[in-house]
């Protein structure tokens, strides 16, 4: 570890940092010192670190340019340990903390001596726009090889290879007025809105609220601007209708004023969230804000000028120079040259001089600048070179000189001899671009304001831009604008306007700015040294010119061809300059060329914040039945059925080994066929239907008849959609003449409930019937197998189990294990079966009582896999597995469940008479018996008639369900085959991916007990 270096660029006093708190940090392995209140960027500048990265495409040395979210270069990889790695952190937005460890995102093997830099330098002129598209196109197989090296040298950070130790969450927020940005406009707006009583949320992305006022030279009410900020924040935080969120970026603006705010709660403290009072705290939080009205006080980003060599470290935005000096007490150099098109930028030169450093010259592109700040600079003895601009920065790893030349902006040419001035810093300003990202997320196209030289947001109902976001820049006007926007928002949200007077700011006369984007060079754009437009994506003025020459005229196409405004940058610094250059090349005006749209997110958001708490064990709800504890204790393997966790099978320990699924299922199947098994069937959907028209309603939604089903009886029913296709099935029991209990498939419960409601509410409101879900109220246990009655006899005294009084498809009520129960004699196994329903709170004791009595009969718990084998042996379908939305009841061969002569045209009936439903050759459900009894066909396997047919073979159908049956000692399957019902006994073939071809015989879907005698015993 090397010795900490001196903070050579740190001023002896000034700034908002806490000099009493020294912090140590490391960058690219070197240890440095900074202060509390620093950003990583200000601390790096204080330590004289010039090169912070290598550029994405050309691998050029890059330094810090900006002081905020618009920083294109200083992207770092943050984090000490592997799990804490965070890519693409802007050093300008990262608060310094003790022990911070960061590395440059790009640069291999390091930023100082970059291998790829040489490549960039040599090949620079051979890397036109579209370079990657053109160069690495062929051969396609080589892309993976290229990519490895391109990524290594030009990636945008890397993901951690270990799990994230931090936790994240979401907060659902609602407010009357959301104010984005807490600079002068935002604070004024917040005050105006809050005083009227509105619920206000103020979000600001910086460590401290105050925005431009934190480094302002101006006086508010005759006092330093930051005093007004402090007082205003104090007033706001004292109001309980105001929520202040600093370190919080509004990263996306979605429909109907839904705005996501990304709050970084601990990233200023450590790379992983420290514990608070011994408890975990969230690292970042996503506020999901539903706002009534939104005030966008997002300010403006200063536009750099585009000139040759403008990417060499030491080129900064003029405003950033002021921010570093006034807010952080850091002067990022010794000798400054300023190149500007406006008065505002003069602040940088004045601040620089006041910091005791030399301003070599100000190059002002205007012929006769005459504002107050210009006069102040001249009074201070600063040389102002008018009608001129920096046309080229000299230097390699740091600026060492600026070439200043007189220019003709309209003619886009240099009109005199350049003067070379030695300096180490060049600050530039081409004016401001309102931050309209959020406004454009709403889909509104911005409007170009020629008088303000920028795009401003178009009007969207409920949204107001204020201050810099609206291209209003004079502090007094910004404050007025904020107050007006805040008041208006509150009034629109239904509150009374309260008068709030903004602080007094002495008016300052500014000269008119001129429009300057790309500075001309003595050479043509294509021949001049590189003039960068988008520093993050390495897009140059020449690149844009080439794109227009190659025929890309739409700005959207230019953007995609050059990559301008891509990625995490989202065109914050470069977009307007790029559009202006495209406009110049195409001979059009900027509004004619238009602008591209910005997308969420404004700055990168961690995946953790997006996920919040919805991960790990809380990723999705897991639904449990009342017997779940028992299943877990028995070592059941679970299957996901929708959100339910259902026992899949219950493996036993046999000779010290755990049974495989096949072994367990074979044992469970035989237990049911030979003795008695029990299934937890609680997950089936259950709907309580009451009303005088309940029976009529059932007749309309089921394909079969319900008119004569008597209380005490149960019937199986099929449901179709109106296109005639089966979508669910189940049994419905008649509880009373106007009272039914419908069961649905486990997965179909919610769908069927909504299905009943939509027909009742939108088509047949005249039917008097109500539906209520009782799925969770009842726990259901299916006792099935030849010994089922004997077991039932032991646990009930008041239900007559005699086969002639409690018949198949009857239901009875009484007590089971002392608990009130409804028992249904329905069977999904083909065996004698009782479905016991008890109130779920009693389920576990009833279940355990059944086992207490059932052991002597060999009572065996079985899971869903065995359930599937047993039902398929009987040809019972599973809707959604044996049907897929293209299968009619006739295709299933279930003619017995279709009531064509019912009086009402029930759902699906009309469609079944459409020509397509009636045509021959429809796929029909059949059984398949593999010729080789040990083969278990693959579910989904295609079926052909001629295995020797040339590929592609005509498909005749596919396997829908397939299992091994221990009862039959054979594989067997259900399948849909074209005209299958007429093909009994014929052979079909199933060619598999591995080249094997299985042969199978088409048979009945019922493999066992075709007369259904076993369930009637």
């Amino acid at each position: 570890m090397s010795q900490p270096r001196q903070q050579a660029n740190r001023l002896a006093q000034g700034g908002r940092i806490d000099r009493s708190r020294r912090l140590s940090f490391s960058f690219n392995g070197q240890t440095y010192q900074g202060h509390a209140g620093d950003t990583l960027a200000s601390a790096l500048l204080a330590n004289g670190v010039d090169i912070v990265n290598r550029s994405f495409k050309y691998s050029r040395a890059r330094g810090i340019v900006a002081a905020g979210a618009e920083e294109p270069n200083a992207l770092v990889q943050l984090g000490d340990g592997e799990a804490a790695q965070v890519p693409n952190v802007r050093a300008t937005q990262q608060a310094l903390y003790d022990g911070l460890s960061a590395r440059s995102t790009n640069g291999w093997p390091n930023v100082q001596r970059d291998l790829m830099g040489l490549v960039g330098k040599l090949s620079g002129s051979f890397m036109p726009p579209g370079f990657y598209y053109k160069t690495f196109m062929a051969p396609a197989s080589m892309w993976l090889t290229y990519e490895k090296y391109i990524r290594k040298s030009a990636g945008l950070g890397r993901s951690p290879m270990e799990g994230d130790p931090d936790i994240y969450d979401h907060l659902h927020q609602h407010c009357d007025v959301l104010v984005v940005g807490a600079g002068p406009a935002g604070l004024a707006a917040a005050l105006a809105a809050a005083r009227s009583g509105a619920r206000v949320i103020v979000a600001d992305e910086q460590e401290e609220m105050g925005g431009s006022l934190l480094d302002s030279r101006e006086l508010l009410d005759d006092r330093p601007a930051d005093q007004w900020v402090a007082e205003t924040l104090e007033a706001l935080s004292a109001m309980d209708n105001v929520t202040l969120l600093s370190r919080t970026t509004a990263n996306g603006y979605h429909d109907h004023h839904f705005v996501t705010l990304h709050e970084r709660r601990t990233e200023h403290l450590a790379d992983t969230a420290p514990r608070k009072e011994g408890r975990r705290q969230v690292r970042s939080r996503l506020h999901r804000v539903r706002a009534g009205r939104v005030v966008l006080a997002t300010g403006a980003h200063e536009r750099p000028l585009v000139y040759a060599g403008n990417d060499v470290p030491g080129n900064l935005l003029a405003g950033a120079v002021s921010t570093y000096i006034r807010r952080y007490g850091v002067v990022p150099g010794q000798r400054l040259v300023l190149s500007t098109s406006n008065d505002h930028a003069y602040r940088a030169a004045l601040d620089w001089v006041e910091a005791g450093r030399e301003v070599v010259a100000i190059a002002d592109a205007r012929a006769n600048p005459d504002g107050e700040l210009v006069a102040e600079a001249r009074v201070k003895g600063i040389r102002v070179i008018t009608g001129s601009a920096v046309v080229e920065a000299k230097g390699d790893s740091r600026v060492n000189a600026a070439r200043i030349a007189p220019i003709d902006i309209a003619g886009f040419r240099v009109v005199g001899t350049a003067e070379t001035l030695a300096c180490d810093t060049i600050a530039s300003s081409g004016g401001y671009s309102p931050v309209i990202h959020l406004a454009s997320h709403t889909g509104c196209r911005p409007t170009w304001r020629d008088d303000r030289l920028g795009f401003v947001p178009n009007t969207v109902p409920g949204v107001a831009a204020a201050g810099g976001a609206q291209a209003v820049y004079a502090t007094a006007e910004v404050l007025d604008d904020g107050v007006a926007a805040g008041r208006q928002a509150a009034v629109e949200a239904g509150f009374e306007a309260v008068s709030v007077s903004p602080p007094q700011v002495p008016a300052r006369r500014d000269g008119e700015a001129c429009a300057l984007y790309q500075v001309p060079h003595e050479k043509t754009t294509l021949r001049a040294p590189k003039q960068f437009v988008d520093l993050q994506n390495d897009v140059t003025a020449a690149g844009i010119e080439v794109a227009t020459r190659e025929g890309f005229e739409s700005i959207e196409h230019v953007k995609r061809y050059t990559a301008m405004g891509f990625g995490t940058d989202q065109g914050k610094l470069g977009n307007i300059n790029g559009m202006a250059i495209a406009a110049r090349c195409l001979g059009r005006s900027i509004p004619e060329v238009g602008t591209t749209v910005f997308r969420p997110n404004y700055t990168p958001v961690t995946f953790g914040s997006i996920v919040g708490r919805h991960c790990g064990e809380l990723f999705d709800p897991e639904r449990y039945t009342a017997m779940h504890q028992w299943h877990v204790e028995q070592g059941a393997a679970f299957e996901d059925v929708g959100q339910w966790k259902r026992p899949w099978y219950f493996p036993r320990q046999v000779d010290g080994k755990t049974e495989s699924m096949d072994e367990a299922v074979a044992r469970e199947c035989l237990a049911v066929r030979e003795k008695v098994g029990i299934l937890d069937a609680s997950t089936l959907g259950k709907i309580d239907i009451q009303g005088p028209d309940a029976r009529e309603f059932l007749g309309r939604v089921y394909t079969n008849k319900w008119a004569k089903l008597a209380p005490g009886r149960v019937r199986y029913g099929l449901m179709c959609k109106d296109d005639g296709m089966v979508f669910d099935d189940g049994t419905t029991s008649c509880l009373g003449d106007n009272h039914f209990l419908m069961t649905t498939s486990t997965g179909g419960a919610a769908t069927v409930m909504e299905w009943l409601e939509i027909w009742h509410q939108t088509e047949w409101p005249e039917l008097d019937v109500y539906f209520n879900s009782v799925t969770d109220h009842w726990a259901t246990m299916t006792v099935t197998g030849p010994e089922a009655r004997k077991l039932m006899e032991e646990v009930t005294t008041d239900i007559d189990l005699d086969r002639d009084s409690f018949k198949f498809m009857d239901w009875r009520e009484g007590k089971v294990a002392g608990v009130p129960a409804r028992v249904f004699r329905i069977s999904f196994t083909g065996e004698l079966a009782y479905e016991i329903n008890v109130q779920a709170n009693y389920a576990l004791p009833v279940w355990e009582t059944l086992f207490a009595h059932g052991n002597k009969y060999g009572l065996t718990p079985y899971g869903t896999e065995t359930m599937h084998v047993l039902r398929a042996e009987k040809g019972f379908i599973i809707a959604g597995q044996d049907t897929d939305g293209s299968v009619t009841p006739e295709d299933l061969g279930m003619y017995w469940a279709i009531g064509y002569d019912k009086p009402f045209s029930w759902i699906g009936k009309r469609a079944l008479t459409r020509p397509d439903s009636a045509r021959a050759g429809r796929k029909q459900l059949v059984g398949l018996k593999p010729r080789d009894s040990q083969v278990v066909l693959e579910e989904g396997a295609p079926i052909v008639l001629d295995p020797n047919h040339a590929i592609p073979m005509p498909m005749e159908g596919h396997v829908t369900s397939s299992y091994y049956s221990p009862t039959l000692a054979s594989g067997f399957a259900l399948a849909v085959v074209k005209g299958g019902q007429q093909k009994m006994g014929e052979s079909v073939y199933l060619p598999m991916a591995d080249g094997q071809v299985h042969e199978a015989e088409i048979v009945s879907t019922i493999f066992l007990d075709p007369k259904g005698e076993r369930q009637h015993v």
Partner: protein
Amino acid sequence: MFYIHCPYCGEHREEEEFHPKGQAHIARPQEPESCSDEAWGDYLFFRDNPRGIHHELWVHAVGCRKFFNITRHTVSYAILETYKMGEQPTFTAENPEGRPSVAADPASLREGVRA
């Protein structure tokens, strides 16, 4: 993420509480059996896809479980109105600025449930 006024709950609720159910006012033909195959096919399968004002059926699934209609602009995503089953929209393609509300005509209510 829409913010939807449920006409039955009388409040705006988050979109996550609702399910969209397709185009509104698709009435099932009263006499399916006497309906031509073409007319039945239209009822089953054909839907509008307008650029502009669209009437949609939604259900307040995690809420009151009532179905209702939304008039929504498919470009701006603005919701111009929501209305109960049996009511008619105020904003239509023909009257994009809305028409004076008309008293519900009892005769149209039966047809209007979906129609």
